[in-house]
């Protein structure tokens, strides 16, 4: 399960008439993005980022949480927390906690079952004398699906720390994309029934049943499928959504022309979280990209995730991108292709920091 840092703005959870809350929230997201370009908006007032890369860079999750708190304090009151999976991370933020890796089930255990956000389930559990998340998690999984249905089983997986989130948590934020499992990502009703597939084919129905049984094994959000849309780079063009037999497919923007796109072929490996990188010239001096989009030195060697330096034998770029020009804090970044003996990388540089975004694996 992903380690996530969640920023929760209690004052910005509800949209107001003039959109001021939303504008403040966008400022918060911009400020957080200074620490990691990969910020996901969960719903208005809440955003998350994977801590893996940035925590190493900024000396641990605690100092990352502190930096994010300081960076956003001037905009609005924020609560920051870290835990495994989105559900626990939001609760950790409400208490301002950094839950240590693997400590999420212990963190959740003493909380009342009502935090799962299903009042009917909470009432039923209460009648059975089950008051805390820990008590609920202790029920054998095989009994949960039968007694409490698919929603109950999903809550149980989250309670016991085997799944990271409940779909209901996410809500679209106007003007921003929301990735990840969507509400309603759960399967309901028999798969392969006419209507889902429109009687497409036996092949699709068989596959649907196989995927549904995988979902029963590891949880509904464990099976995903990829969608493409127009975009500047291979990372932005793809997103993964929870597989759902009822979903139609929509790739209308696929192949839409988009200036500034990095030429094909696309990298076969896109890292789910950016990897921290350092790029230096042959003498070890750091190389960056100037405000005019030019390299400040000749790339000579590359280190990824503080690993050993490897020689850069060829490179191409930089391709500057000036994304989100509408935002007040304009975000300047550029990309570089770098060939080393071990791997060929697509690098991203932003505010003087290098990251590995993808690998031509």
């Amino acid at each position: 399960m992903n380690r996530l840092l969640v920023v929760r703005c209690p004052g910005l959870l509800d949209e107001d008439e003039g959109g001021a809350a939303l504008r403040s929230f966008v400022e918060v997201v911009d400020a957080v993005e200074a620490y990691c370009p990969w910020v996901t908006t969960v719903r208005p007032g809440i955003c998350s980022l994977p801590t893996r890369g940035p925590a190493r860079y900024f000396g641990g999750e605690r100092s990352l949480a502190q930096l994010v708190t300081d960076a956003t304090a001037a905009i609005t009151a924020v609560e920051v927390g870290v835990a495994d999976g989105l559900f626990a991370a939001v609760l950790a933020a409400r208490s301002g906690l950094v839950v240590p890796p693997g400590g999420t089930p212990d963190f959740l255990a003493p909380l009342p079952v009502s935090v799962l956000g299903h009042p009917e389930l909470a009432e039923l559990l209460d009648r059975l004398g089950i008051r805390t998340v820990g008590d609920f998690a202790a029920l054998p999984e095989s009994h949960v699906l039968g007694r409490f249905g698919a929603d109950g089983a999903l809550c149980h997986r989250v309670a016991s720390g085997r799944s990271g989130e409940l779909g209901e948590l996410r809500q679209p934020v106007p003007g921003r994309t929301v990735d990840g499992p969507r509400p309603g990502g759960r399967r309901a009703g028999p798969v392969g029934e006419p209507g889902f597939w429109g009687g497409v084919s036996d092949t699709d129905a068989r596959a649907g049943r196989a995927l549904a049984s995988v979902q029963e094994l590891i949880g509904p959000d464990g099976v995903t499928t990829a969608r493409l849309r127009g975009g500047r780079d291979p990372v932005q063009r793809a997103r993964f959504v929870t597989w759902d037999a009822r979903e139609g497919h929509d790739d209308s923007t696929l192949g839409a022309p988009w200036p500034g796109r990095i030429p094909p072929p696309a990298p076969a490996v896109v890292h789910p979280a950016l990897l921290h990188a350092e790029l230096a010239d042959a003498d070890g001096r750091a190389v960056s990209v100037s405000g005019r989009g030019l390299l400040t030195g000749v790339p000579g060697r590359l280190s990824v995730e503080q690993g050993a330096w490897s020689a850069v034998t060829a490179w191409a770029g930089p391709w500057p991108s000036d994304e989100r020009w509408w935002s007040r804090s304009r975000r300047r970044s550029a990309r570089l292709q770098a060939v080393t003996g071990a791997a060929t990388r697509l690098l991203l540089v932003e505010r003087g920091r290098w990251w590995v975004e993808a690998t031509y694996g």
Partner: protein
Amino acid sequence: MFVASPDRRDVDTPPPGPSPRRSLDRERDLASLALLAERTRPVSSSQTRLLPVLPPLADLLPDGALRRGSTIVVAGPAGGTDGDITVALALLAAASGAGSWSALVGVDDLGAVAAHDLGIDLDRLAVVPHPGAAWAEVVAALVEGVDLVVLRPPFPPRPAMARRLVARVRERRSVLVVVPGRSGWPDHPDIQLRIDDLRWEGVGTGEGYLSGRRMTLTATGRRSAARPRHRRLWMPSPTGAVADAGGEAPAGAVPQP
């Protein structure tokens, strides 16, 4: 919604913790059902023995295609992983384009654009990025209805588990492509594909861009496939596809450094 329902199950999966007798009955039922299906249904794709591969890869395989029920292991150069996922995806491409379902297990960093450009139908590709400790069970469940499964085991597999999985794949007539990385695969696959001499073209010291990669693929196997077969390929080619690279650049290949 949360009313107690004693046995509400949506699909015909076995109940949790089935008794051995019950699963035996079930297997017998399935076998007779399969027999019945074979007699009553015209030959459909799931009844054929072979699944197509992209033409440049055909010479590497003993039948010029993927044999249903077989297991293929892809190994990167010098025990590394460089290029292994591209080769695995390329193996799926033709069958996927022809309507087969495929799945990736343990691959949490798929470049979906690259997969699409190789010819994979993303609408019929399921990705199980984090199967965790249940990875073998996930593969076993998938081969019930998915023709091609790419597996990157999240933990080094034990030999007994690998053998069981291979037997299951053979029985369900799917194709398993394993990218084991450094941990290796503790079983002799039907086909082993090794990658050598990777070289990206089109990029220099600051000029051009990555336009394509050449590699040598060597296939070795058992019985009829025992003799090693070599092939020099563009993978990916300048369009993101697979092309023959018998020393020459394919049409449309751009600037050499």
